């Protein structure tokens, strides 16, 4: 279970998150919605361990373990995965080499030896199916020259390979056309299971037509101003954020 308590976060002295409380149980999918600038991506980056964000108060634990004490790589080895809103291109690092390094880092953490090359290739090919990507991807540099849709599918593919216990999807729907959105959503749905928690961050309700969340939270100016079921997302789609913001103000 991912548990966030009274989380306050600043960037360059400016407070962005002003006391977030969130509990995501095993197998649950929570969606965080909100207008631009509400702090959604900050929350994702903080959970992943980006050092530019300063946590001034509060705690984040995964199954009781303090995540804030850990560097980004340690968090990932503990089972945290963030699908980036803007995955970076890394020229010269092949996708296969990258995935293998990540997979082996996780294995080492669990006290297992390095994966057999053939076994890993088979695993990776199987997971490519999740997001309908071709194996030619593996010899390409990480994200280099990928279209927007390919980058997002690549994120979900990595999630399929690494099998995290908590996945944070940061606007995975942004920049996707209808077909790519469907492929990505199907991939994500295939990865839902009773052990895995997911936090789906999105600006629009359309992603939630494909990935139906258990709970929807509305984030505004660094605070969760409303929590409800999937119907809250539909409500927002029809009425916009204005009404809620008015209530909160």
């Amino acid at each position, binding site marked *: 279970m991912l548990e966030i308590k009274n989380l306050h976060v600043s960037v360059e002295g400016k407070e962005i998150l002003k006391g977030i409380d969130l509990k995501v149980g095993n197998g649950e999918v929570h969606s965080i919605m909100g207008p631009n600038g509400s702090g959604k991506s900050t929350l994702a980056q903080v959970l992943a361990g980006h050092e530019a964000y300063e946590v001034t108060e509060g705690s984040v634990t995964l199954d009781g373990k303090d995540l804030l004490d850990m560097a980004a*790589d340690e968090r990932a080895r503990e089972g945290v995965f963030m699908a980036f809103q803007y995955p970076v291109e890394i020229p010269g690092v092949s996708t296969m080499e990258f995935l293998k390094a990540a997979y082996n880092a996780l294995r080492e953490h669990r006290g297992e030896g390095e994966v057999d090359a053939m076994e890993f290739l088979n695993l990776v090919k199987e997971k490519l199916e999740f997001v309908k990507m071709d194996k030619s991807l593996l010899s390409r540099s990480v994200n280099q020259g990928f279209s927007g849709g390919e980058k997002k599918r690549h994120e979900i593919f990595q999630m399929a390979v690494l099998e995290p216990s908590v996945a944070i999807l940061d606007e995975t729907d942004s920049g996707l056309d209808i077909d790519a959105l469907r492929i990505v959503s199907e991939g994500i749905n295939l990865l839902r299971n009773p052990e895995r928690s997911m936090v789906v961050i999105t600006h629009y309700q359309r992603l939630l037509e494909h990935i139906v969340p258990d709970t929807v939270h509305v984030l505004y100016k660094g605070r969760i101003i409303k929590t409800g079921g999937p119907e809250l997302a539909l409500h927002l789609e029809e009425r916009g954020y204005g009404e809620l913001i008015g209530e909160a103000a």
Partner: protein
Amino acid sequence: MNVHSKIQLTEAETELIRAFVERSARLPGNAQTVMTRDSAIEAIKAAGLPTRKVEAWHYTDLRRLLSAVPAYDPEVPVDDAEPLIAGSPVAAVANGMTARAPNVDGVSFSTFFARLSEEDSIAVPERGDDTVGLINIAFVSGGWGVEIADGVELAAPLELQNLHGGGQVHVRFPVTVGNQAKATIIERQTGQGEALVSSISDVEIGEGAELTWIIVQEQPDDTTHLGQFAARLAKDAKLTLFIMNAGGKLVRQEVRVAVVGEGGDFQMRCINLLAGDNHTDVTMVLDHAAPDAGSVEIVRNVVTGRAEGAFQGQIRVAQAAQKTDARMACNTLLLSDEGGFSTKPELEIFADDVACGHGATVTEIDSDHLFYLMSRGIGEHEARRLLVKAFLAEVIEDLDDEALVEVLEAKLDAWFAEHG
């Protein structure tokens, strides 16, 4: 030998002169060679080693940086080195003396010692204008002469090893690649213990010949390495020079290439891995003397610790060298705040119909790249290793030889494991 110095000699200069007095009688060579050696040491005595006031040594103040010269010790044991590519033929020099040469069809080997000792031996080539040449001329004792006959294609790389166990080592590799011949030659520079090494490879490349020359310099971290690679390309000859500097305390690698035949092609890829207190200087002079030729030089540097490096690249395009296409790039990845790397490109163009260009960059590891890799569980050291390798990989992969790429990348990994 009775010339008075006009300058106050440094400890290292004094030691060099003393070593010459001690050793000159035992060095090989006919009367002409002896005179050439004398005049070389006289030149050092008169002017001293170059300081940064000498333009070619602007980034490497040899007079200041060469603080000591180890004693000559030909008896010190030398470890063998396995060839880079398993099973390839090796011609080795140990402590400056020729040790062994292989049998290779179409290739003849001669010891440089024998060449100098013969009645009609070739004199040491005139290199009065350069310090590496002067030191080498004064002291050179051995090396392998290699002649690859016309039309011969070597099945495996030929490895020339310059090995030492510390002390002074001065060697020469005169190499001739016949017309239409095709070869890969690996020049290994390594040893144990503090040493002063000068090594000159002098290469003639015949018409239509294709030569890949790979220098792997892994001297101990208290060794001074003065290397010079000189080559002349005949008509339609192709030379690919790959340099990996991954050791030494004070390293100067000179590259002097003349494209004298039309249609020649020169490619240089150079990787400098600098750590600790290392100082590495790669200085290239490329002469385009004939038309319709091309050249590309890519230098990539990774600098950590307090290491300092420099690349000087001079391209001279003569008036006759119309349609020359010459490109040069120098990119540096700084892994520490205290390290540094200087680049000085120089283009001298006397022909009007040419394309010449150069560029230089200095970067650090991109924090977004690092975060992305680490966010997948990859530890920081491993993530940095992947990014450093990525920075260098395309230069190594340009070699287009899987076995070579593999061993060079393994060397890179070994360097990073120790210094990264």
